[in-house]
């Protein structure tokens, strides 16, 4: 496993796209969080916004960059045929997938932490000017505050789990375009369905099983009792998706010819 980790680390590190994708994850998280903050105003004490969730909005955009990075980490090898060199050098395919997952998760987590910290910092600078003031019930965002820390750390974990989910799907699908399609469908189809369906029972069910909606419950800091799923339970649902996708990809990797 140590050799597989070393090889996969060297592989990902020497790919030109990796740096750009990691930068995009951090920048998109901060930029869209800041933009969402700047576009929202809180006029009164009852404005009913979740300032923490608002500050971390960028995660919903940067997850697309995470998806692309994760998908290409494996389909880039299938597309060129280099996967054969990989499995010739490292015949233990599950170990290769595990090493890829570990390296990818590590890098994504670093970029995500940078993005999330930047988002909190941007929110501290922007939100008070948009009416998110202590008078309206919004103290300055601080990571020393339990729910804020949970939402911020959870958002970084969310992006990491998205990376693992996408790696698993891409390993099963093998083709770049198809994998990106499946992954984005999996992420964005549920929110669209939830909005299109009027029955509240079905809505709650879909939120609970949707990797994106359930996963993002980790960002909620207000009206927690009204949410369809709790913060950590929601992240648990996404974890289950990621584990299932990796298990499925790993199984197919063992069964299929390379």
């Amino acid at each position, binding site marked *: 496993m140590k050799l597989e980790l070393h*090889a996969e*680390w060297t592989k990902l590190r020497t790919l030109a796209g990796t740096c750009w994708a990691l930068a995009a994850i951090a920048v998109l998280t901060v930029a869209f969080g800041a933009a969402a903050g700047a576009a929202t105003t809180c006029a009164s004490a009852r404005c009913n916004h979740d300032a923490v969730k608002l500050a971390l909005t960028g995660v919903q955009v940067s997850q697309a960059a995470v998806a692309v990075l994760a998908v290409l980490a494996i389909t880039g090898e299938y597309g060129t045929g280099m996967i*054969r*060199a990989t*499995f010739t*050098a490292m*015949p233990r395919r599950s170990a290769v997938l595990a090493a890829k997952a570990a390296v990818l998760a590590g890098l994504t987590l670093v970029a995500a932490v940078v993005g999330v910290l930047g988002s909190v910092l941007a929110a501290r600078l922007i939100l008070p000017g948009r009416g998110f003031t202590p008078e309206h019930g919004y103290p300055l965002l601080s990571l020393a505050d339990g729910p804020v820390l949970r939402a911020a750390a959870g958002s970084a974990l969310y992006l990491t789990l998205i990376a693992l989910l996408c790696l698993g799907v891409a390993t099963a699908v093998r083709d770049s375009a198809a994998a990106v399609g499946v992954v984005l469908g999996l992420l964005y189809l549920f929110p669209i369905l939830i909005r299109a369906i009027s029955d509240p029972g079905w809505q709650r069910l879909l939120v609970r099983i949707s990797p994106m909606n359930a996963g993002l419950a980790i960002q909620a800091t207000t009206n927690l009792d009204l949410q369809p799923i709790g913060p950590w339970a929601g992240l648990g649902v996404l974890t289950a998706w990621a584990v299932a996708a990796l298990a499925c990809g790993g199984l197919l990797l063992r069964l299929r010819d*390379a």
Partner: protein
Amino acid sequence: MESNIEVTGLRKRFGAVTALDGMTFTVAAGKITGFVGPNGAGKSTTMRVILGLDAADEGRVLIGGQPYRALRRPLRHVGALLDAAALQPSRTGRDHLLWLAHSQGLTAKRVDAVAGQVGLGAAARRRAGGYSLGMRQRLGIAAALLGEPRVLLLDEPFNGLDPDGIVWIRDLLASLAADGRAVLVSSHLMSELQGVADHLVVAGRGRVVADASVADLIAAASGDRVLLRTAARPEAMTVLAEAGATVAVTGRDTLTVAGLAAERVVALLTAHAVPFAEVAGHRATLEEAYMELTRDAVEFRADGAR
């Protein structure tokens, strides 16, 4: 570990197509074994099965007595060149070798040594996407040599090489075999292997059509036939037939004699005072031997004639 490859009874189907149909052969140490056959004969599939990339439906492959997937740090036992173009274009040649090295517990020092050995030079630090076919082939060879393996598998290594490159690979293969390594080289062109291979495994329709030394194959195709030119055709035929030869008339003054060596033919004719103008051993080229063996195995020709 022993340096050899034992391929035993491989069978594999892709849907309705039988790719391998009982492929069996051994690659011995210290020799270059040519693996030839028309396109679609199952050469590449066999190589992928040897490397554990494809699973055979039946049969097994042992490398030095072990299945490939059981090898720890396999590139230190087996070096392979499958498809030199199978690279991620944005990575430099050196970085490509570097991840391979790291996967085997080798260091950058070994990478630079092997890059120098194949003459990659300064190009090693350029992106592999910009390499010529010949450069990629050299990079692929470097990857195969990286772990100083005792067994080498090269699938069509001459493809896309200029004459200098072909000479270079021939010399390299010869020196690798001289070191006692087992070398398997596939090609769909017999001419590429003439003067290179010591032993030949000829594949056709997923199985081995012939497995023999190059010398034996040529002798078999030549069939110990002797070409005789003589004005006294009937007399010659009588004398030779009495000595047990099969004689066939092939022209107004030519005969083909089978079953007697050229020296014996000369001795018989001289003893019976039969005049002759020429006695020559008929010697097939490797190409002819190959065409003879694979005539039934060529799928494309049959399909194309329909």
